[in-house]
């Protein structure tokens, strides 16, 4: 009976082929440093899930953002846990992605044939930092407001283009409701979509080239 059901599903989905190609692959001997990439991926997923929960209550307007966060912390069942995980997950993700980059650097895994994997990786690092920068403003508290004021000022110090960049980031000369709306859109749509896309390519490349081995003296 079960065999029949399995065969039926297998015939249509072709899971076996997936298994053979994705999971049952040979790999060079690895060690614990090789888990950092998948740990980054795991954190991305966790941030996505907790983030979705947070948007249920969060309101991106200067009048309500702060209070909606207070409500998540005090009013919503387990809201504090979800927000706590999202908050610490952000910091941890930055650390882990950075250390993952260092490990790839140290083992020279960015060399032929994995140059593109590295390039995409830099995009991932910058996008992750971008997520941190845009997410930090959302609670609309004093620390966030003034850190973003200074952060955008720094971006605005680019010669010639500075003024334009500053206004594009803030949606005007000052931090306002528009800034919050922009950062919110970037934080929940733009950057995650870009991240997800690049992660897809990153993973495809890793499967295609296989994980690099640890170099020995003659290499």
């Amino acid at each position, binding site marked *: 009976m079960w065999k029949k059901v399995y065969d039926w599903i297998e015939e249509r989905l072709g899971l076996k082929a997936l298994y053979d190609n*994705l*999971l*049952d*692959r*040979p*790999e*060079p*001997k*690895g060690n*614990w440093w*090789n*888990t950092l990439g*998948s*740990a980054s991926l*795991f*954190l991305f997923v*966790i941030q996505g899930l907790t983030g979705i929960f947070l948007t249920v209550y969060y309101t991106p307007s*200067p*009048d309500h953002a*702060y209070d909606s966060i*207070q409500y998540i912390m*005090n009013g919503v069942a387990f809201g*504090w*846990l979800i*927000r*706590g*995980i999202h*908050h*610490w*997950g952000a*910091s941890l993700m930055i650390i*882990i992605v950075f250390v993952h980059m*260092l490990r790839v650097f140290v*083992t*020279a895994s*960015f*060399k*032929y*044939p*994995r*140059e593109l994997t*590295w390039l995409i990786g830099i995009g991932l690092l910058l996008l992750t930092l971008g997520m941190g920068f845009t997410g*930090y403003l959302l*609670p609309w*508290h*004093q*620390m*966030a*407001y003034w*850190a973003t004021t*200074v952060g955008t000022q*720094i971006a605005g110090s*680019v*010669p010639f283009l500075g003024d334009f960049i500053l206004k594009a980031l803030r949606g005007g000369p000052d931090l306002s409701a528009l800034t919050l709306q922009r950062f919110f859109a970037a934080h929940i749509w733009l950057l995650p979509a870009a991240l997800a896309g690049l992660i897809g390519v990153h993973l495809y490349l890793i499967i295609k080239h*296989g994980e*690099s*081995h640890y*170099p*020995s003296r003659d*290499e």
Partner: protein
Amino acid sequence: MNDETKKQINQRYDRELQRGERFWPDSIFKDVIVSLAIFIVLVLLATFIGVENSPKADPSDTAYIPRPEWYFLFLFKFLALYGQIPLLGKVEWLATVLVPTIGIGLLTLLPFIDKSPWRYYTRRMLPLTVMGIIVFDMVLLTLVSDIPTVSESGSKLPGILQTVMGLAIPGLALIVLYYLAYRRGEDSPVAPMLWTSGLAAVLMVGFAAATFIVAPPVAKTEETVANTLIEQISAGQDLYSVHCVECHGDDGKVTVIEGVEGLEGKEISPINGRDMLYTLNDAAIAEVINYGRPDAGMNPFGKAYNPEGLTKSEIDYIVTFMRYNWDDRFEKPVMKPLFPSLADGEVPSYDVHIAPIVKRYCISCHRAGKDNNNFLMTSYQEILTTGDQADKNLVKGDMNSYLLQVIQGQAILDEKGEELIGVMPPKGHLPTDVIDVWIRWIMNGMPQTAEEAAALYVPPTPVPTPTP
């Protein structure tokens, strides 16, 4: 890279695969363990440390010292140190734009800059040591980020030490490393390069330690944030007592202002009734407090108009207090008592009992700039030492201390029979348990801390049970 090398690399990789492991289950197993560990760490952090709160954003509070997320702190510090360099430091965009762009650019193009097929560590001394120094510098810059570049006494030493640590030594080390690497061509000298980076690292740690010694990190200014509704109501009540009571009275029902210079006898509408609370929503009340009613005599309280005024969060707390106390549509939660009640023979302390009482009942008048016989009550020291009658206000063990008399409805008269001090507080009177706290505190010698008070505790002598 020519096809021959590529072929070699690929063959080499195939051989490694032969003697390797399987993705499933070998690698996945490790991945899952690490992910699980991360998840547990996150839950623990969220549960036991939680998320630091900060007051609501207040665009008018320009005195606020900005502080970015920790992972941008090193950049912040780098900019501050760079600004110290004479001349060059003035051209801001060199540091804010050029240096980060070059850094990220080099990192991005790394596979196209470092095109040699060599992978083993000793053959890549230059990239490894350079990256090591830079990452180490980033960590140290993050650690010293809370130390100001100019110390409290105005000395520039901390800034100089930090600049040597964060810019000079690593800069010098990088130059030496490049020199060592290129002097020999193909093979970089391993030992000298390791010694160079090791020495640089030790020196950097030394200077970092020196900075910590000459200028300890400034303690972050405590920001009190009321997290729960109860805390908010109580914070609002304290703020209301300080700022609003003189005109609106402690229950908001004053209709004729008394004893306020310039507004004596002014008729106002009470602010505790439905007329006000039903017609104005929270945002509108917050606006009234923010802008005041300058035409009618109420000063603006918002930071934008009054540098010593209230922040957005503080105004919100006052509104919350008004709603939950006076608006009959809101049910007030069970509040924590102002101070813990006292057992027989227990002695109150300034920290635990007197401070909250003073804040609620006396501070509105007894602070700088008010009419109060120069009796200031904002700290323990002030209460004991200020006032025109400082020597008679609080006398240890004396029931006739002026303070005790006036709070019990007994005005103090001078020789001519004229009033020296009126009853306190001038309007209304203190609850009896508050008066009791004052009496016990002064009779037992005004202890400051809870420990000092506990030392004075005399357990009541048990009443002997009559034997039949």
